[in-house]
């Protein structure tokens, strides 16, 4: 997400009325795509999609299977599962980033989508932060502290790092929820056993 483009939300929902309701709620703020089943959802999914609202119980490809395929494709999108029953903690273990219980209210839907977008922006900030910290470490390793004091690039780097640190602290309330915590770690990526 670059911030200037309208975020893209993909709704994968087999009940047309429900899908249309979500669309009505979200269309003012987001670029909405709709799919009636898992296969169509996967076909409409590309790098531009930021958030997927995925109905768990659908004829054909189930929500769980769709999620699996999404993760296999290593796309950066966040996936919220829409379910009829209140799930337990294991939803996070399954790899969903959030869940919504039917019937979904407008306010809830907006909150969930904006929280998921905030997580994406946290990931982006953290990536940028890392790149700057690494650059600073390289400069520090190759120049003396006297040289660094006079180095304009280094001074600017310091400022940008401080600035990013503040932004990270403000995003997601400094990671004060379990869901944000786990989803952020998932964004960093697991390594499979060799």
């Amino acid at each position, binding site marked *: 997400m670059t911030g200037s483009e309208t975020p893209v939300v993909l709704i994968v929902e087999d009940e047309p009325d429900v899908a249309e309701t979500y669309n009505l709620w979200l269309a003012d703020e987001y670029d909405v795509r709709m799919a009636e089943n898992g296969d169509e959802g996967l076909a409409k999914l590309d790098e531009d999609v930021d958030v997927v609202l995925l109905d768990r119980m659908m004829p054909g490809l189930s929500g769980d299977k769709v999620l699996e395929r999404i993760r296999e494709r290593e796309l950066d999108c966040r996936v919220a599962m829409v379910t009829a029953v209140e799930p337990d903690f294991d939803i996070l273990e399954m790899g969903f980033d959030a869940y919504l219980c039917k019937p979904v209210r407008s306010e809830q839907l907006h909150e969930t989508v904006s929280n998921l977008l905030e997580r994406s922006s946290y990931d982006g900030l953290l990536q940028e932060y890392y790149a700057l910290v690494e650059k600073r470490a390289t400069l520090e390793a190759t120049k003396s502290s006297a040289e660094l004091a006079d180095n304009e690039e280094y001074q600017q780097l310091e400022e940008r790092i401080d600035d990013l640190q503040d932004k990270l602290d403000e995003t997601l309330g400094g990671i004060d929820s379990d869901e944000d915590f786990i989803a952020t770690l998932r964004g*960093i990526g697991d390594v499979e056993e060799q």
Partner: protein
Amino acid sequence: MSRSSDSEPVYDLTDVLDFDALSSVRSGSSILISGPAMTGKEDLAMSILADGSRRGDGAIVVTTSDRAESVVSDYRDRVPDLDESRLGVVDCRGESGRSSEFTPGGAFVYHLSSPGEITGMGIGITKCLENLHNNGADSGRFALTSLSTILTYTDKKTVFKLCHVLSSRFDSAGYLGVFTIDSAAHDDQTLQVIKQAFDGMIEIRETEDAREARVLGLAGKPTQWQEF
């Protein structure tokens, strides 16, 4: 925002390591313990946790090398009248997938199959925090031993991000975090990058006849080297 304010508790670590710089460590701080192999980094980390447990703090240990049973039994030796329900262990050396259990004494243990399972580690830590909270511990101390193992499974970028996110999470939760790293096992640039994910660092070195430590980043200038 859940940043610490002046009214929040501070941790006094001087019983473990006698430095003024460690007399009032802000709640939510994360500290890197860095030194070569076999210089007592893990022992120091566990001593910091045990010191908290004696005061009723919760304790969470993420271990990449020791089995959960040995962590728990070592912990019992350190804290004889331990309330085990206030101890949680994430064991990254499980034999089979993710699972959780309670020890007979009530400590919560979460197993992972590999130290490269970053998400699983997060789930284990979250379950530990939840369990400690249910057992009345709302503040506590966290130790991860060791980052060096995780570095062999991943890379410095992943470990830096992991440390940053863990530090943020424990800052929000009001926990003190200590993380160990083998300074001889990685290049300078890796260490330089990773230490920037922390509020401060305890550096350890071994001279011919003594083990010495110094504290950096927690209060003013680096301290002098001091035997411990």
